[in-house]
């Protein structure tokens, strides 16, 4: 065995306890989602389901209106991603490239918006949206999420913009391109990967948000996926964990895959922008 292989075993061994605790609930989720109801409540519970039973998923979408919750979640997450990009892109560009009076004040301001948690403000947020007539309006969540996730988007985008050499744009101006044309033709294509990662990060955050969605969307048909699923535990006479775990699996798996794909960028983005 080579020394690197030995060392790798050592590393995996050191990480193993934490990994077991992390993966244990997912194993539970998966095995329960594929079980029939009576398999959960029987006296001798087992790990593996008797067979691949997909009835829980059918039940969710056909009889529990889970499709609607997924739609609501997608609407809010896509909307929040677009709105926060719309306001964060110019701000990040200005921070990275332009002379701006009060630049450091703006940075501090962004930090402050991150320190105020939506949940501490929840009473005020509820009043704001009640005043605007937007309780039970999916768009309220679009704006709320985009406002709270905007600062992170600005940081991530700015740290990405900073890595793109200024010379390229300047060369384009030299060749007679206008400032806007050079922004669109030279700068924007170069930072597409950064924009993509930022969008995905915002999307995942918005998708997973619970407290604001719980409070502002009071109507059952407007609930987002996480709220709907948590709601399932409280409303049924007996908690049907097989259905709930199937729903958690659907709400979790796609975003977990998205997240895994951008994870290495996050390490870089955070160390460059958010923390510095």
């Amino acid at each position, binding site marked *: 065995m080579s020394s690197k292989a030995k060392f790798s075993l050592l590393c995996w061994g050191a990480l193993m306890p934490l*990994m077991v605790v992390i993966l244990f609930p997912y194993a539970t989720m998966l095995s329960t989602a594929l079980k029939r109801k009576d398999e959960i409540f029987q006296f001798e519970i087992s790990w593996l389901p008797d067979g691949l039973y997909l009835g829980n998923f059918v039940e969710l979408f056909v009889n529990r209106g889970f499709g609607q919750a997924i739609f609501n979640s997608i609407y809010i997450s896509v909307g929040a991603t677009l709105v926060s990009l719309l*306001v964060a892109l110019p701000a990040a560009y200005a921070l990275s490239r332009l002379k701006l009076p009060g630049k450091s004040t703006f940075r501090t301001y962004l930090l402050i918006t991150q320190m105020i948690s939506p949940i501490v403000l929840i009473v005020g947020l509820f009043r704001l949206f009640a005043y605007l007539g937007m309780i039970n309006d999916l768009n309220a969540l679009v704006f709320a999420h985009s406002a709270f996730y905007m600062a992170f988007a600005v940081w991530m985008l700015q740290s990405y913009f900073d890595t793109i050499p200024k010379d390229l744009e300047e060369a384009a101006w030299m060749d007679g391109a206008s400032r806007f044309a050079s922004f669109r033709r030279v700068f924007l294509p170069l930072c597409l990967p950064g924009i993509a990662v930022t969008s995905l990060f915002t999307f995942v955050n918005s998708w997973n948000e619970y407290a604001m969605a719980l409070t502002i969307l009071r109507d059952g048909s407007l609930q987002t996926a996480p709220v709907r699923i948590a709601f399932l535990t409280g409303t049924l006479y007996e908690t049907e964990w097989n259905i709930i775990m199937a729903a958690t699996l659907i709400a979790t798996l796609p975003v977990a895959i998205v997240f895994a794909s951008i994870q290495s960028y996050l390490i870089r983005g955070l160390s460059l922008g958010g*923390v510095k």
Partner: protein
Amino acid sequence: MQATQTNDLAPSGRRARKPRESRNLSNLVFILPSIALSLTIIGYPIFEVLRMAVMDVNRFGKIRGFEGFGNFIKIFSDPVFIQSSWQTLIWTVSVVGGTVLVAVPVAIVLNEDFHGRSIARTIILLPWAVSLAMTALVWRFVVNGDFGTLNLALTQLGLPFNNHPWLADAQSAFAIEILVGILVSVPFTVTIILGGLTSIPVTLYEAAAMDGATRWQSLRRITLPMLSPFLQIAIVLNVIYVFNSFPIIWIMTNGGPANGTDILITYVYKQAFAFGKLDVAAAGSVVMFLMLLCFSVLYLFMTRNRSTDG
């Protein structure tokens, strides 16, 4: 600093600067949308919370009159509020402390070059991708006394935990919630520390090795000191996040049994949306604000120190 300021005031300097300054001012257009959005969604609710905290508000949100400090007196004389405050302290200190204790060694291992490192990183960061609400829900099932998989696993290992109702007792419920809290805070913390580790120049370790330093010595003398600014920031950010963490406790125990797992945020939420005491809830929020403000000032102070250092 002083010199440039007096220079600005000189008439000649001002005239020369004017066209450039007005162009800089027009650059504010770039940051205006972000300021407008956050002022509306974050700024206005702050104003509302501050206003309601000193008003007498009925359960439908109608303001009936000025209350002064009455709402604050009400919460400070509520034993549940005091109990929740202590529990918030235990919750925040245990979760943040536990997170740092787990995250530092994990990040150091993940920074090493070994086979399958990217898979290991993905698994460790996985809880970050999952909604806190979903994690809490799955754990609620895992620790379920009658058919949860934790008791199943423990029983199969020969331990006497058959049908043990973990969430029925406030102490064991709170302990489990703290463990879940640590689990979901580790990924973010590992990410920050990994960022710090990658910023340490390799040449430092090479020089140390040249001078005959062991791995352990360079860990203690180079890695940990170089990490300390990142650690400070990880701690303060985590304090803010954990202090405000709502879904884990709300979904797993709803603050119960008998308020034994209530923290300030669940206390405030219950005041507002279960008991309809919007004014008392607002006062509770203000108290939480003030507590967080101390941490925020600490955070700004620390980042400022760092930017002048570097």
